[in-house]
Each structure stands twice: as structure tokens, then as C-alpha cells.
């Protein structure tokens, strides 16, 4: 059985739905409080997947995800590095993505933070459904066989920004730009299809191995048909596309870990 650790701390608030999505994908999912990880640095060893769910860790008052990022970077450095080196999977959703980026884990070119998720151009929190298009050449294991995906976003700080042109080039060259915002027809997104002003409409990226993945939108909120805004029109949808993200991860883990 694949086991998923859903990291939990003050302000985490999408833990239940993230765990549920992994359960539906066939894994066993557990809420793991950061304080337990601090106490027992080997606790992560029994898990194959680490999920950092959405929320407002420590309030996000300073810069979203910053404090948790530092705890991963400085207090749990060892367990996280080991986890990554063992070839295991990490997904960060929304606040979790902000954490991965600020801890320098994504895009993972060096320990240093090279990209960030800045305040939305609208200067507001926005909750809406958007469309994503997956990069077919991306090594990301979470997005295998996904093309377009309708999914909700809900954030105030999701504008993808890079520190230099070089970083952006490298992300694109490695096909680490996993998801981009598109319009309903799959074309270039304008606001509000790109809800935050992200450069190149980037919604999610992975590391060069494709095993660490972060995105602003919430696939766990698109994992059961009743979560879709038009579910009564499409009750016969075979499988909610959001769930595929979690299934891909579990399948990969079953095969490789």
C-alpha cells in the first residue's frame, strides 16, 4: 500500500480534501503534524509521497508559505533531502507550492530561491474555475496523460515570477513548466483565465526529475464529480480529471517505490 504523508501545521486547511483525493486514488493517507516530524526525524521514511496541502500556514502574513519553507529548509532539511534522494514524490498545492518554491526545492536549480509567487495583479484574493493545459513534453509524473484540465484557483499570491531570464529559459528548456493557464478553448489566456498575471501563464512547475511538483490551482477540488460546477450536466463524466493527478502519483509509486 502506498502511504501519503499530508503535512499539517498551523493554518493548513486543505488537508482533508487532499487526503481524500489520495485515498480515492488508492493510497493510504495520513495527516502528519510538523511538530511530530520535528520530534521524530525518521518519521517520513515510511511514506512514499509527501503532500503539502493548501492553506495559510502561520497566517501567510509576511510572505505566503515563507515560514514553513524555512522550517523545511533548516529544521527538517535532513529528512526532506533524504526523502528526495530516495526518489520519492512531493506535491505542493497552492500554499504548498509557495512553500516548495521558497524553500528552493522548486525549480531546484540550486538551494537558493530563484522563482516566487507574488501578489496577484488584481491585488485581491480570487476564487474561480480556470483551465490548465499540460506540457506534453514535461517529465512530471503527476500529469501523465493529462491534456486540458478545468480546476479551481483560490489565492491572493499566485503570480509566478522568476529572478532572471536565465531561470525562465532553463525551466522551459527542461520542460519543467508543467501547467499553463489557457482559455476555455485552449488558447492564450487573458485575465481572468490567467487569474494572477503569472509570466508565460505558468500555473505549476516540477523539478528536473518530474517527481517534485507544485501548482497554484487545486486538483483535489476537481477530484469528484460533485465538485465540478456543471456536474449535473455531465453526470456521466468517466473520471474527474483532477483525480488523475493523484492516480498518476500513486501508480508511479506502486511501480517504482
Amino acid at each position: 500500500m502506498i502511504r501519503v504523508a499530508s503535512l499539517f501545521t498551523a493554518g493548513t486547511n486543505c488537508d482533508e480534501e487532499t487526503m481524500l483525493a489520495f485515498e480515492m486514488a488508492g493510497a493510504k493517507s495520513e495527516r502528519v503534524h510538523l511538530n511530530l516530524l520535528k520530534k521524530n526525524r525518521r518519521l517520513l521514511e515510511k511514506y512514499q509521497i509527501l503532500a503539502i496541502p493548501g492553506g495559510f500556514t502561520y497566517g501567510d502574513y509576511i510572505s505566503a508559505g515563507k515560514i514553513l519553507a524555512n522550517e523545511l529548509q533548516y529544521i527538517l532539511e535532513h529528512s526532506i533531502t533524504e526523502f528526495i534522494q530516495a526518489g520519492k514524490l512531493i506535491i505542493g498545492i497552492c500554499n504548498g507550492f509557495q512553500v516548495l518554491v521558497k524553500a528552493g526545492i522548486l525549480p531546484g536549480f540550486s538551494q537558493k530561491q530563484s522563482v516566487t509567487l507574488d501578489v496577484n495583479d488584481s491585488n485581491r484574493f480570487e476564487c474561480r474555475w480556470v483551465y490548465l493545459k499540460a506540457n506534453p513534453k514535461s517529465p512530471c509524473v503527476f500529469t501523465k496523460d493529462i491534456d486540458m484540465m478545468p480546476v479551481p484557483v483560490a489565492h491572493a499570491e499566485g503570480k509566478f515570477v522568476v529572478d532572471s531570464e536565465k531561470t525562465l529559459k532553463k525551466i522551459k528548456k527542461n520542460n519543467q513548466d508543467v501547467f499553463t493557464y489557457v482559455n476555455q478553448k485552449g488558447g492564450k489566456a487573458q485575465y481572468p483565465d490567467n487569474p494572477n498575471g503569472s509570466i508565460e501563464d505558468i500555473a505549476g512547475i516540477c523539478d528536473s526529475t518530474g517527481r517534485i511538483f507544485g501548482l497554484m490551482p487545486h486538483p483535489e477540488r476537481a477530484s469528484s464529480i460533485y465538485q465540478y460546477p456543471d456536474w449535473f450536466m455531465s453526470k456521466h463524466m468517466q473520471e474527474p480529471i483532477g483525480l488523475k493527478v493523484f492516480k498518476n502519483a500513486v501508480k508511479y509509486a506502486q511501480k517504482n517505490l
Partner: protein
Amino acid sequence: MKNIWRIEICKKGVNPEAEVLKHSIREFGIKGLKDLQIIYIYYLQADLSEKEVYKITQQYIYDPVSEDSKILRLEDSKIERKRNSIEVIYRPGVMDPTAENVMTALADLGYQDCQVRTAKQYIFSGQLTQKQIKNIAENLLYNPLVQETLRDSKILRLEDSKIKKTDVQVQYIDIINKTTSELMDISKSRLLALNAKEMQVIQKYYQKLGRNPTDIELETFAQTWSEHCKHKTFSTDITFKDGKKKQVIKGLLKSYIKKVTQELDRKWCLSVFEDNSGVVEFDHKYGISFKVETHNHPSALEPYGGAATGIGGVIRDCLGTGLGAKPIMNTDVFCFAPPDMPKHKVPKGVLAPKRIIKGVVAGVRDYGNRMGIPTASGAVYFNEGFVANPLVYCGTVGIIPRNKINKKIVNGDLIVLIGGRTGRDGIHGVTFASLELDGESKHVSSGAVQIGNPIEEKKVTDLMLDARDQNLFNATTDCGGGGLSSAIGELGKTGAVVKLEKVPLKYAGLSYTEIWISEAQERMILFVPKKKLTAFLKLSKMHNVETSVIGEVNFSNRLILKYYGKKVGDIDMRFLHDGLPKKEMNAEQTQTAETIHAKNGKRKTSTDYNQTILKLLSSYNIASKEWVVRQYDFEVQGKTSIKPFVGKKNNGPSDACVIKPIADSNKAVVISCGVCPQYQKDAYWMAASAIDEAVRNIVAVGGDPDKTAVLDNFCWGNPEKPEILAGLVKACQACYDIGKVYGTPFISGKDSLYNEYKSIEGETLSIPSTLLISAVSIIPDINKTITMDFKRPDELIYLIGKMPLSLRGSKSDRSNLRGLPHSLQSFAMTAEEILKFNPRLSIKIFRALHRAIKSGLVSACHDLSEGGLAIALAEMCFAGGIGAEVFLKNTTEAQRHREKTRKDSVSSETLCLDGESVLLFSESNTRFLVSVPKEHKSRFESLMKNVPYTEIGKTILSDRMKIYGVKGKSIVNLELKKMEKVWSNSLSSAMQ
């Protein structure tokens, strides 16, 4: 002396916050601003080296990709405070959540003794005078109630959290030898809000004891006997004069509201009126709790903090229900003055409407989103009458295991306080709520205004739900109005000993009385059995929640308050809870409600209905509330199935919200509301209409009217004025009458009275009396719910419900008629008709329609509310991207036919039916528009055969809405895109 460090953070590129602010400044009327820069400042008082501060900044404070940082030491570098800048900081003692969270993070790193405050510096460039900068600051940048602008030396006073033990001097207040007027002086000067009779009863009690009360005892009476805690107006005897009739009402709550519930005796009501929320049955395992609160006074003075602590408070009500319900949804209903109300009409001393709107929405957003609770249901209503007293209703829906609904008081259980620390915040909040606001309120009541810290409450929630599931406590309640005094006084009614020095404080210098009555946020009281304390403490440590044992429960009937070993208060619990003298109140209906029939129905009005519809669609009460709603995370928890916006492009206004709380069950919860303050002529029918609207919305999405429970929230003016109290009586009577016929029990409620504002000129402004009805219903199968958008072309459109007699009062309000053709305005003004309906017919309509929806015969359903038929049809069309063709002739013909065959009692007034305006725009109650696939026509009609319905047209494959008049002529032909655009843009652009 510790160093004070100033860390400056500045955005690298364009700063969206500065851009938005620049826009607001220009809109405010100040030209000459060229640019604006915002610097985010952290003041850090700590024994640290520059290297350490640098490290802290790098690790915790700034984002190297998007920000620049600068570190200054305060002593040796004079801060350049440019003339063209202003720096805003929270006042000492006011919750600064950013600082609070930085301190927690630093403590985690091992920096225990750091004090942090945050500030923002605004640097203006361009040609601005000092006066203009001051003006900008006061109107757009800060609220002097909670913030101040910084002058050089002030920052040096960072509060020291070390508590020094002070010498305990017990304060006695001399009352036993005072005259009544002296007693009232005491009540006034101490902000006790106790009236003469109450003061006298207390005096007599202490005369018998042969001593004076201590200050803390007197305060305990003031808190416990406050309107907020005791609901005196709703429980007292009222002499009600209505014309020649005179009657004595033995308590409004008992005689009307609770009576409905008692008489209906629904077995699916699991807990009513006795706990912090009402609870109804969800299934054999769970109950659904629901509570709605108001936070009007604080939101008028400090919109952001007031609204945030309002939502924070009602979430704690949810946690304090039984042994803790898990919050699964928030609701919010606001009544504001319109955002563009002219400046000269805004009374002096009152914040501008737009500032209030922005602040309130941001407050609810920041608290609800951070807590991870979807804010998914609500309403926003605009009327100039709310300019000085905006209404802010906040509600929380929770889910609770049925075996956790009851609390147990066990002798010897420990009184445990969890959550935030106690400061001077919110002192006298409840007594303040029982006073009118005036231009001076800002000075006397600043302690009653607070800022919330949602992450503290999130941790408290996590801890409580874990502790509940591990059976670690026997009872709980929230610390809300009245602070510890109400929480312990209420829950520990059997007797308790409290050691006040055990309460953790934010800063030194609080007196024992302040500790007892502080309304500091994010605190809960739990009764923990001694043998479970260790387990509880371990759990709270994991969740990083501060926990203190502050006393013990017993069965002595005495409340003993101690401070460092000294007894400072000793009160008989029986007198505290039963000693309150009954108030005597008078209500008088001065004018009998006039009934103006729609005699003007035939009057020629503007025939350009296209323009009228577009104008109505853009009026604020009808226009899309997207600007508000999308700032809320209405999807978090992943359970929101029918969202605030529905339809093809997710922009149609849903009638109600449906959540599916349990993953492997198809049962769902539907939540709606009804609020009709526009209908001020007759409080009875205003209340009746609110109930009808709430139930209508439930039925419209597929909820069962026979399994619907409601909540009442009254916001009224000063009830000591007989004519204002008369309205309240009438509204309560309607609650009984309509509730009884509809079969909707009341499960919880709250009142906020004294919503008046005395302007500096001495004029008293009272709010429009407003009753909010919130409704909750359980749907057995979510697959039987529907939404309001048209789904397919070539389906039949039916109008369900009785034909309208008139345009209802709503549009009579000029502020709603912004830009309507003058002819229609005057029509609406005169065509006021008391909106009566027959509840017996209404419930028949609800049941019939519910059966049709449940049987899968209806593809879309929308209730008729603001703007009537034309607006409901327009919304259904553009939400579904499907056109419609509707024939008004059908309605009149059907009506005539009905009258001929049945001698309907309305026949004398049918003349006005020819008025197309009436047919298009009337807002009369209990009406719906539905679409029905052709193949279901006969089955649908046979289910509806005993209630009024008319087939009025069909959906068409077109991008236009077409309406044909009573003579068959085309009177409306509008492009869907155009309607959608004006509807979507109106409020959003007003709020930019």
C-alpha cells in the same frame, strides 16, 4: 536596553497594492499625485547582533525574488522621515497579527524575547500639500481607533510581555448609600449600561448583605445582565397597543419564536435555542449546526476588524456547540449604503460607504479564508438608511457527531482556557452594543474595537476537534461578549472558583476586572476532567495552543473570583442568573399600515422596457455581487456542490448553496437566506416576505420545504421607542404565523438592537428595521438538486405562483432606482401595495414544485425576487447562454380564465394586470420561473394542478431574450451578452 531594529521591505517591480491605492486617491479627488511607494516595516526589539537580524530577515521576512530589504538600527541611525511620507502602525495593545506570527516563528527558532511591531510607510511623490497627505491618510490609510501615525520617538515603546505581580487592592464601589440618580451616574461613568431599576435591585441585594460590591462583582452584573447576554427586549413583558386593541405579550421569544418550534415539535430538530447554535438531524450519525450573529457596531467604527471578529465570533459559536461542531461553511449578509452615495449626504463622523464596504468584505475574507471555511452563501443589500449603521451578519454551519451534542457539568472538572492571550481589547463590547452610537463613540468605545488573529482560531479549532474525538473534555463554550465573565458565569452556573492571575496576558498592567471582562478574541473555555489534563496538555502542545488551568467547577452555587490568593469577588449564582428585574416595555403601532392598491397600474409608463431591464440589471441590489464573492474561498474543503455562481460561465446567481459534507454519502445540506429591508411600511409583511424568500430559495434548488429549519436575526433601532418596538412585535407575530403554516421551526436566533446613530448635529438616524431569515434543509440525494441556468433550448418555461397585483415596495426606494426612467420611478413610488400573500397557498406551491423537482421534471428553477419576472428570466438566460421567448398574454389570459372558473378573490383588483410593468417587474412573493423539457409537460402540469401556474414561453437556440406584451407585440428584445455585461460590471466598477 535592547536594540530596536527597523527592517524595511520594498517590492521590486510594480506593487499592486500601491496601484490600487493610487487609483483610490485619484478617485477621492486628489490630483497631483505622481507616484506612491509602500514600504513594509518590521520593528524588532531584541538582544540581537546585526548578523542575526540579517539572518532573520533573510529567512523569515523577505522574498529575494520579488523584494528588496534594508536593515537599520534605530539608536544610531536617525530615520529619515520625509515630509512627503506617512507611517501607519497599530496602536500598542491592538492585535497586530503579522507581528504576532513573526514572534511565534522567532520563538520557534529560539529567539524567545523578541518584541515585534509592524508598520507601513507610504511615500508620495508629486505635488501634494501636507494637508492633502493628512487627508489621504485619514480617509484611506488608517483608522485612528486601532492605528496611529508614527512620530519619531514613539516606536521606542514596544510593550513588554513580562508580567509583574502588582499589589492587589480590592476595589469596593459604594452603592448601598446612594440615591437613584447617583446610581445612574455610576452606571454611566463605568459604562455598565444598567438602568435605574437594575441598579436598585443590585443595591438592595448588597444592602441585605451589608456591604458594597467590589468592582468586579458590579461588572459581572453589567455583563451578565446586558442586552447582548440576556436579550431583555425579547424576554420581557410588552404592552402592545395596536389602534384600539391593547395586549400584554409575555415575552416575544416565548410567545412567538420559540412557540412555533414547540408546537411543530419536529423530531429532526436535535437542539434548539439552548446551545450556541441550533442543530438539526443530518443522518443517523451526524447533526448540522447553524448560527448567525451580527457585528454591527464594531463594523461601523472599524469595518475590517469589526467584520473579521464578527466571523471569528460566530465560528467560536460553532465550536462551542455541544462538544464542538466542525465548521463547514460560513454565510455573510451585509446591508450597506450604496458605494457612490454623495459625500454631502454622509453624516459627519461616519466613515464613507465605500470604505466600510471594502473593509467589511476584506475582514470576512481574511478571516474565513485563513480558517479554511468556505464562505458560500449570503446577500448584499444597499440602502442609504444604513450609512451610519451598516449591518454585518455572519453565520457558521457546522457538522457534529450526534453523540457530541450534549455537554456535561461534572463537579471538580478543571476550567481550562485555550487560545489567544488576554489584553485590554474588547473591554465593554457587550455593554457598548446596548448603547446608541454617536459622533463621540470613537472616543469612549475604542476598547470595544478589535483586530482578529485567524490563525490562532484555526489552531484552537484543530485542537478542539482532536480533543473532542479523544473525549478529553466534558463541556465547552466560547469566550465572546462579556469574555470570561459570561463564559464561566453561563457554563459554570452550578458554581466555580476562578484564579484570575492564571490567565495569560498580552502585556502587564491589566487589573483583575479587566482580565475578567476582556473580550480578547480566539479563546475558548473547556471543562476538563482532572485525570485527562495530561493528555489534553500534550495535545495542545502539539497544536501550539497556549493552555491554562484557571479554576474549577463545583456545585456550591457560588462564583468565587480570586487574584493572587485574595478573594476579589463572591457572587450568588442564583441571584446573578435569576435576579434581573423584568423590564416593562411599551409598544405602540402609531399608524395602521396603509394599503395603497395598485390603482395606477394602468398608467402609461415608459415603454422602452429594454432600457429599463438594463438599468435594473445594473442597479446595485440586482447587479452581480461577484466583486464580493470571488474574494471568498467558497471552494475550500472541496464540498461546495452548488456554488454561489452557476451556469455555463459560472456567473449565474445561485438561489442557495448546496454542500455535500460526507464524501461517501449523497446527502447534502442546503443553505439560503431571505432579507427584505426595502419593505419598511409594515414590519409584519417584511418579516413574512423574508421567511418566504428564504424558503423559496431552498425550494428553488431542490430542498424540501417540510424539512427546512430557519434562524432569525433581528436588527432594529432603539426598542425603548414604542413605535420601533411595535414593528418588532409585528415581525415576531409574522414569524409565528408564517412559520407555523410553513412548518419551519426556528432553531436559533439573535438580536441586535439600538442600531441608531446620533449625528454631531443631534439628529438621530435609525436603521431600516431588518430581519434576516437564514434557512437550512437536508437533501437526501444530491442528484435531485438543480440550478437556475437554462440548460437546453426548446424547453417550456412556466411561471409558478399567483399573478402579481402590483409593483411591490422595493423599487419605491429611490436609491434602488438609480437611473430608472422617471416614469417608472413615479409609477413604483405610488404603486406600493402591502405585499400580502396567503401562506396556506404558498406552502402548497412549495410542496408541488418540490415534488416536480424531486421527480426530475424541472431542468432549471429561479425564484422571483428583486426585479421580478424580467430580471429572473434575464439571469436564467445569460447564465445558461440560452435565449427565451416569453408571452405575457399567457399570464393575463390564464388569470382571467382562473377567475371566471373559480371566482378568485382578487378579481376586483385585476385591472392592473394589464400593466406590463407590473407583470415584468413585480416582486410579489412565492413565485418561481422554471424550465421543463417538453416530454415532461403533462406530468409536470398534473403535479401542479392545484396551484397557480402558467406556461409563458420556451427557451430558444438564440442569443436573445424576447418578451411579447399583453397584446402580442414585441416589448423586449435584448442580447444576452449585453445584459450579462451590465449586470456583471456595475458593482465591480463602482468598487474599483
